[in-house]
């Protein structure tokens, strides 16, 4: 592969036999219609060079290491520039240009900034390795246990982004606030898990939003014997009406298997195709980065270009209903707690309005309805407690 060789073109085939007697070695000879290709190594090239004019010989191709040497010689300025640019890009990607601490607390910001500075994380300095970064993080967390709860140092391009969570003492404990567990929504109670306080509602009771379910006031008969911080979880059955609007017709985009690969150069949000042109009217491109850089928004990608076929599709009442059911369920689950469950899904109305199919869906949901309400001193019951 790397052995240097020359391929020479002998334009007059008749002269070949004369060359055989010039003490020149040819490690391959290829006979073409109009000419003959002679493969020689560097030593034999020097021997045959003097016959170039006599026998009408020219260099057809250069192969092996010599080819790269000549290319390097020809494009040396370009290559050196590219190499220097790559080195510069690499260097710049390893330098910190800014440090951002994501906190509003000036004291915390100053502490972290000072610590980072002491550990060598500063502007216009080289970035730290992952190991060093983790060590710095641990040390800061250890030194400021009482002030910092959590800390993360991320390197985003050439910027250090420090996410920090301040340690806050539990306000309830600090201020000794007492609270009731109340319903966050109008619901039918399905499950009560009380850890403290007095449960004042039963499963299957209907509760309005804000109604007390676990009370912090401990009663004995009619009298309040004490006030505690009520806590627990309450799950209830809630109801939703979801309105889904679907157009009568829609574009159904399908990515076909008619695909090909190409090299693309991405500059900011522009994409330039290097090897092949886009053959399709509608297409989908997925990129795999080959060379990318965080500082310069330029990347070389291997892109897979697939034809997209746009089909005009129409909803029937049946398909629209199915789609509405799917969308409403998806929408609700996305907006609810992950422990929530849809108990019932029912169509309420289905009609057409200005080329739009409207589906109204009723949904019964099992969800967490726990909320808290502070017990204030002015509360009549609480006053009663204080009198006792």
């Amino acid at each position, binding site marked *: 592969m790397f052995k240097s060789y020359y391929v020479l073109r002998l334009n007059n085939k008749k002269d*070949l*036999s004369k060359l*055989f*007697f010039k003490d*020149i*070695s*040819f*490690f*391959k*000879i290829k*006979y073409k219609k109009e000419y003959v290709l002679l493969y020689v190594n560097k030593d034999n090239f020097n021997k045959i060079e003097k016959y170039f004019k006599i026998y009408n010989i020219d260099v057809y191709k250069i192969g092996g290491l010599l080819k790269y040497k000549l290319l390097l010689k020809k494009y040396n300025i370009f290559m050196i520039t590219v190499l220097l640019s790559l080195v510069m890009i690499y260097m710049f990607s390893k330098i910190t240009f800014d440090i951002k601490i994501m906190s509003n607390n000036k004291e915390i910001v100053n502490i972290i900034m000072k610590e980072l500075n002491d550990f060598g994380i500063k502007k216009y300095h080289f970035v730290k390795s992952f190991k060093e970064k983790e060590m710095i993080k641990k040390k800061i967390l250890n030194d400021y246990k009482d002030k910092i709860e959590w800390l993360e140092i991320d390197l985003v391009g050439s910027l250090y982004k420090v996410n920090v969570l301040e340690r806050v003492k539990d306000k309830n404990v600090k201020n000794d606030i007492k609270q009731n567990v109340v319903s966050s929504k109008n619901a039918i109670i399905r499950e009560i898990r009380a850890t403290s306080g007095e449960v004042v509602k039963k499963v299957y009771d209907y509760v309005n939003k804000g109604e007390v379910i676990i009370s912090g006031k401990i009663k004995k008969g009619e009298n309040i014997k004490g006030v505690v911080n009520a806590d627990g979880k309450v799950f209830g059955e809630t109801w939703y009406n979801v309105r889904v609007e679907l157009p009568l017709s829609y574009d159904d985009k399908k990515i076909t298997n008619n695909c090909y690969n190409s090299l693309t150069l991405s500059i900011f949000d522009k994409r330039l195709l290097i090897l092949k042109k886009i053959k399709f009217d509608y297409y989908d491109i997925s990129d795999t980065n080959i060379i990318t850089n965080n500082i310069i928004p330029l990347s070389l990608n291997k892109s897979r270009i697939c034809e997209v076929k746009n089909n005009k599709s129409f909803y029937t009442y049946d398909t629209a209903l199915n789609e509405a059911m799917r969308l409403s369920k998806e929408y609700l689950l996305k907006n609810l707690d992950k422990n929530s469950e849809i108990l019932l899904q029912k169509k309420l109305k289905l009609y057409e309005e200005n080329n739009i199919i409207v589906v109204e869906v009723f949904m019964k949901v099992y969800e967490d309805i726990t909320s808290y309400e502070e017990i204030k001193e002015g509360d009549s019951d609480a006053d009663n407690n204080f009198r006792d």
Partner: protein
Amino acid sequence: MMIKDIINYIKDDKFKIIFTNNSLDIINYDKLLEVKDSVVTIEKENNVILIKGENLRIDKLQDDELLIIGYIKNINLSR
């Protein structure tokens, strides 16, 4: 004896003619005397070897090896 065998094996300066369907590989020849479409003549230790055939062409020509392609009809050795 064994060392001599190894040296001979590595050096391999034996004169060989290897004939396959459309090619004739001649190893360790001395001199190429003539090249024509119908005949190629070589010399080895004062012996002349005549290769006759049709459309004979030299495919490789090196100090110790010569590869002839074409329709080979006859190989003749004259002492």
